[in-house]
């Protein structure tokens, strides 16, 4: 798919970018009425990085990203984008960043091309309409009205509108929320291509697999704070084991958790809705020991699964909650 895109579309000019970070947040704070949405946030995103803000709904991701986008003023703290601040360089920043907001509905009765033409006209420099349509793979929908597009196509149009100004820094707020799996993968491919072109991308998501797949580094947010920061691999490693063993036990006897955690190789244990979750470093040595232990306790196993640890497990490990618990 990458080959389909001409390099001219995706090459971000190596224009004056200095060596500073693309995004720098210090002590960011924002409260709405009685809710503290962002609670003292520090963050640095390097040039060319694809950075993910990850967290459940209401964690403060959208507020954070909208403060970065200059749409919401923070109560306290500083925001620096590309070495510039909103207070002094709003006009220049607007031209150098690309934004895709959650929930924007473009006018149903305009066509894809007309919508892009409108957004392109706001930028003094940028890519051509043809290029933006090609990048978003909307060639066949060029003259279709927005109202007739699928959810994935609308989202790709929103992405194309964010790209028309050939931005150095791209903000994507929950780009795949509400899309079917195929449309999500389609959009991931698009983000991959933008990454390859060297753009700095900051995206929010509450899908852990999306963050793992797309992001170079991830910040996990909860209650307006960053509770973990690092590459997906680092964060997963921080869980203590690379694999998760899930088992369900039936019968009248209670499991002795101490016996489970005593098994060599089991890093941690928790119970979620009757399912025991063990983090394990080496499946091939530890799993037989788990079976032995269960048999010696006379427990009956009704379900047994293993999977590689994911960011989901990191979030569960850090907060004791599942990501999609509302």
């Amino acid at each position, binding site marked *: 798919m990458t080959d389909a895109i001409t390099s001219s579309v995706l090459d971000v000019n190596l224009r004056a970018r200095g060596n500073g970070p693309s995004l720098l947040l210090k002590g960011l704070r924002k409260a709405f009425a009685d809710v503290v949405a962002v609670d003292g946030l520090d963050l640095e995103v390097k040039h060319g990085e694809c950075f993910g803000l990850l967290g459940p709904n209401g964690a403060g991701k959208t507020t954070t990203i909208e403060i970065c986008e200059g749409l919401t003023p923070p109560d306290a703290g500083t925001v620096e984008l590309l070495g510039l601040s909103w207070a002094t360089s709003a006009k220049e920043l607007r031209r150098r960043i690309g*934004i895709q907001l959650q929930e924007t509905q473009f006018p149903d009765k*305009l066509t894809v091309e007309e919508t892009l033409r409108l957004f392109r006209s706001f930028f003094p420099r940028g890519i051509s309409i043809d290029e933006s349509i090609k990048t978003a793979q909307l060639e066949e929908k060029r003259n279709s009205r927005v109202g007739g597009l699928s959810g994935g196509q609308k989202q790709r149009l929103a992405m194309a509108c964010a790209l028309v100004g050939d931005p150095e820094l791209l903000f994507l707020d929950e780009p795949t929320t509400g899309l079917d799996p195929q449309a999500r993968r389609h959009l991931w491919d698009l983000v991959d291509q933008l990454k390859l072109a060297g753009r700095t991308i900051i995206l929010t998501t509450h899908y852990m697999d999306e963050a793992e797949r797309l992001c170079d580094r991830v910040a996990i947010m909860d209650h307006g704070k960053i509770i973990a920061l690092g590459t997906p691999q680092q964060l997963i490693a921080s869980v203590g084991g690379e694999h998760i063993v899930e088992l369900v036990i039936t019968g009248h006897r209670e499991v002795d958790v101490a016996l489970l955690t005593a098994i060599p190789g089991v890093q941690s244990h928790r119970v979620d809705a009757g399912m025991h979750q063990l983090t394990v470093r080496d499946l091939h040595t530890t799993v037989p020991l788990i079976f032995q232990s269960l048999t010696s306790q006379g427990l009956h196993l009704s379900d047994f699964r293993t999977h590689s640890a994911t960011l989901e497990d990191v979030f569960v490990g850090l907060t004791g909650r599942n990501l999609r618990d509302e």
Partner: protein
Amino acid sequence: MNKLELSSLYQLTMVRFKLFLREPEAIFWIFIFPILLAVGLGIAFRNRLADVLQVGATTTQLTQALAADRGLAAKTVNEADGAHALATGDILLLAIQMPDGVAYKYDDTNPDARSARLVADRAIQAASGQHEAVHAENQLVHETGARYIDFVVPGLLGMNLMGSAIWGMGFAIVEARQKKLLKRLVASPMPRWQYLASFLLSRLVMLVIEVVAFLGFARLVFGVPFRGSILQLTFLCVLTSLAFSALGLLVASRAKTMEAASGLMNLVMLPMWILSGVFFSASRFPAVVQPVVRALPLTAAIDALRGNMLQGMNLGQMVAPVAILLAWLVVPFAVALRIFRWR
């Protein structure tokens, strides 16, 4: 792309046109509806040839005397039937033979009945040999400009300018806000003033189409007069449209949902539909409410349009309504810009 197509103001304005033209309902309400209304009213209130008034009399002698006047159609009825015919509106007047003369039974609050009384009396007096004390001669004229259609066309024009400006601004802006499009636009480098300016520009172009179509129709079909300066009429239309656009912007400046906007717009327009003299003269309202009625922008607009079209007045003779319209342009616009919510 040429230079014009790269201009954001041009693109924003073109988008306004496209969105308007792709909304068939909007086209109907703005272009077709006023013409249909004018046709309907023109037919209903057309000036017929001098009406023949239906009257009754209790004797054949009286009937003959009445029938001698071309303005009357008379029939002979007994008094009871005549009273019934009066009550049901079959006749306007009943002439009753009395021992010492004649009695007229009619409703004096009905102008047609009062006319019938005068014509019937003249006919009966003439039949009994009375002659005119002063010689009189009738010179008949049918003057345009004094008909109901002439009165109502400037009213409909004003009403249409109000509706298209307020609906055009209000719905489009609130819809964009509700769909988070306004927020997306301000997140782009678009200069904010251009967004509002695109509404005014597209309004002005649409105004030309809608005014020319409506007035052209009124002129061709009904022969409605244009006695004032066309240039000044154009100025009045533009001023009216801008004043109502400012009001529309104010209505749309904070509303978050289409329902709220729709309610607000009706709240703003309803009093003017009733009070501002679209279909009948605003001077019919009691003196106490006149200051309020006069201060409404639609009253001012319609007064000025009628002054120009029907009386051939120039702007110098219409300082008051023009000043009122200017105030309605400046004040709501300033307030709207101050309180406008972009997200």
